[in-house]
């Protein structure tokens, strides 16, 4: 999120905050409740741990964060804001190394982006939002309707194409997704597009035949351009619990995922599982979706996200 967002920083922050506020209200309210006039004792730390667990940080990570927090402050009087700030710092430290914006390298043309993820995570919607963002940056975009499985998936992407006035390459329902990818690359080259985003069908990571199909799509793309796909983005649903870790692991193995986007952070789900994922895999987190409108895709900022997660203002 570069030039276009700097110009209206207030809008960016307020939107992000609106989205994440709901996520953090419960958590921060909870912390406030715990720490008014209290010592940081074992029982309090356990309650704090519970609060992190409830934001999907997972049992192990929640424990680790709390242990670090309590090391120097155990048995001391501590104000709620101080705990929140310290907690945010601990979490931000884990997230900072992976907070990397999606960088479109101009020396690849078309820059090929493959979108992958489980069913219903928000791949197609994210493509629609990204298309708008890239267009605003003055790039020409083309979309490939690679979800040839789900009913009306092609039509859904077509609507996003129409909204953004970008061409959509599509085939027949039930046709080979790898073939569609091939066609899309051919056309993006012929029309000199800067960026080609290829949608894929949602698949659960434990279905080996579907993961093999994904590998095939990538093989076909590589035959066209050895460096491609230049970005393979895994779309994670913030509502998902610890299974998101498994999704990141398996998709990384099968599709060589290059980065993550987390959607649906405008609900009450807090997406704390990103902290586990950041600890376990060296996967850049590019962006988060904080609303339904086309502008609601924001770049991922470790400090803001961590502060919001523990209920601090940014």
């Amino acid at each position, binding site marked *: 999120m570069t030039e276009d967002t700097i110009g209206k920083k207030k809008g960016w922050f307020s939107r992000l905050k609106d989205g994440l506020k709901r996520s953090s209200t419960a958590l921060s309210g909870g912390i406030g409740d715990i720490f008014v006039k209290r010592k940081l004792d074992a029982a309090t730390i356990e309650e704090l741990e519970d609060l992190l667990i409830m934001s999907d940080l997972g049992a192990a990570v929640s424990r680790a964060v709390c242990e670090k927090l309590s090391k120097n402050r155990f048995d001391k009087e501590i104000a709620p804001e101080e705990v929140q700030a310290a907690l945010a710092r601990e979490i931000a430290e884990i997230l900072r190394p992976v907070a990397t914006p999606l960088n479109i390298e101009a020396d690849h043309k078309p820059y090929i982006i493959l979108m992958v993820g489980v069913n*219903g995570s928000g791949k197609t919607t994210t493509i629609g939002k990204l298309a708008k963002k890239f267009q605003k940056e003055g790039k020409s975009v083309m979309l490939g309707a690679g979800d040839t499985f789900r*009913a009306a998936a092609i039509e859904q992407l077509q609507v996003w194409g129409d909204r953004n006035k970008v061409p959509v390459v599509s085939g027949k*329902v039930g046709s080979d997704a790898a073939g569609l990818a091939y066609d899309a690359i051919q056309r993006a080259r012929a029309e000199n597009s800067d960026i080609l985003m290829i949608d894929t069908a949602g698949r659960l*990571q434990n279905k080996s035949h579907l993961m*093999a199909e994904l590998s095939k799509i990538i093989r076909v793309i590589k035959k066209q351009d050895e460096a491609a796909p230049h970005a393979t983005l895994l779309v994670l649903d913030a509502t998902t*619990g610890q299974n*998101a870790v498994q999704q990141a692991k398996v998709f990384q193995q099968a599709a060589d995922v290059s980065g993550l986007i987390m959607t649906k952070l405008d609900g*009450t*789900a807090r997406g704390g599982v990103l902290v586990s994922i950041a600890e376990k895999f060296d996967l850049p987190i590019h962006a988060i979706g904080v609303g339904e409108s086309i502008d609601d895709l924001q770049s991922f900022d470790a400090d803001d996200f961590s502060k919001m997660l523990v209920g601090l203002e940014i």
Partner: protein
Amino acid sequence: MFDSLSDKLGGIFDKLKRRGALKEADVRQAMREVRVALLEADVALPVVKDFIASVTERAVGQEVMKSVSPGQMVVKIVNDHLTEMLGSDTSGISLAAVAPVPILMVGLQGSGKTTSAAKIAKRLKEKENKKVMMASLDIYRPAAMEQLKILGEQIGVPTLPIIDGQLPVDIAKRAMTAAKLQGMDVILLDTAGRLHIDQTLMAEIIGVREAVTPHETLLVVDSLTGQDAVNVAQSFSDQIGITGVVLTRMDGDGRGGAALSMRAVTGQPIKLVGTGEKLDDIEEFHPERVASRILGMGDVVSLVEKAAETIEAAEAEVMIKKMKKGQFDFDDLRAQLRQMKKLGGMSSILGMLPGIGKAQKKMANANIDDSLLKRQEAIINSMTPMERGRPKLLNASRKKRIASGAGVSVQEINKLIKMQKQMAVMMKKMGKMGQGGGMPLPGQIPPGMEGLIPK
């Protein structure tokens, strides 16, 4: 890395070895681990706490029965309690109302409402001979209405014609009228995905509810949902009022957690579970089965029922005759491989068998999966009919020919022959025993499958 809940609990209870009454210290230690295991399986924290508290109370001081180990005793107590929490009986979709019975589907974005609506429609049509119509009230997501229409065509269920620009409440009313006029038994109303905190959209759905008074309001929830499941369930339940839950993506590997939370929070039964990509892949929810599956005690009943549905009676009869004679050639093996594919492949079958959780994981690690079934079938397909009927014919040169025909190594052919031989021996034994004796005991690998599982 992420063990399934059943593996974890299995591991924990293996440690409890002492006999006599269950000591509080032992139980508490086991429960600490149960807590972590449940949390990592995404069971909501408040539900976990309730569960641990009551199960601890129940377990402490209980005399361990002579025939079981303390670990098994705790598993039994935990299992009983889990089953209770999940709901003590099976509850299907109720159609006991004046036709057309309106069924409303609600849930978050991407939870699987539209696909579930089509699966339910197909089920009602085929299993209960109902005349079903579907209507999409999703005016927001691009091509959502189109999606339902296409699904309707695929399953032969009519959908309400799409009129652009109509509001959800009006579509719902129009759907009721159309269903009435066409003499439908059921009208399934699919709605747009919405956040439970989006007041505008929640008000919209309340409007729909008031317009059609649905007999069933089903909350569709992704079984991979994390801690947020509590908030979602609570909000939808409080604001709209739901009569049941449909749990989707139960074929994923994040099994259990949300299922446990849902019933506890909403007080409503889980009526159906989505188990795959095909429109047939929807099943009734059986609390006792899911509880025992979670605890690693397998889901034997489920497997038997599923097999009964798939295996055609005629085929079974031929099989029994052969079994009595103690014959089992490659034609039979091929038939069985195909049967297994129909059942949802190795991994899904193994998941249902007791004690196989660990073996299944081994298989996953060794990258042995359903493609093995395909390869084995290819090997059999590369044999001549005579070879299939008389496995003894297979000498070295025939094996070589088959190997090149199927694109595999001779080693793989040998493995398959070994499997066929083992099966033949089993069949002979079973034939002698007459009826029964078919199901393996819990913890045992089913006959003939040993070859498929790496040591």
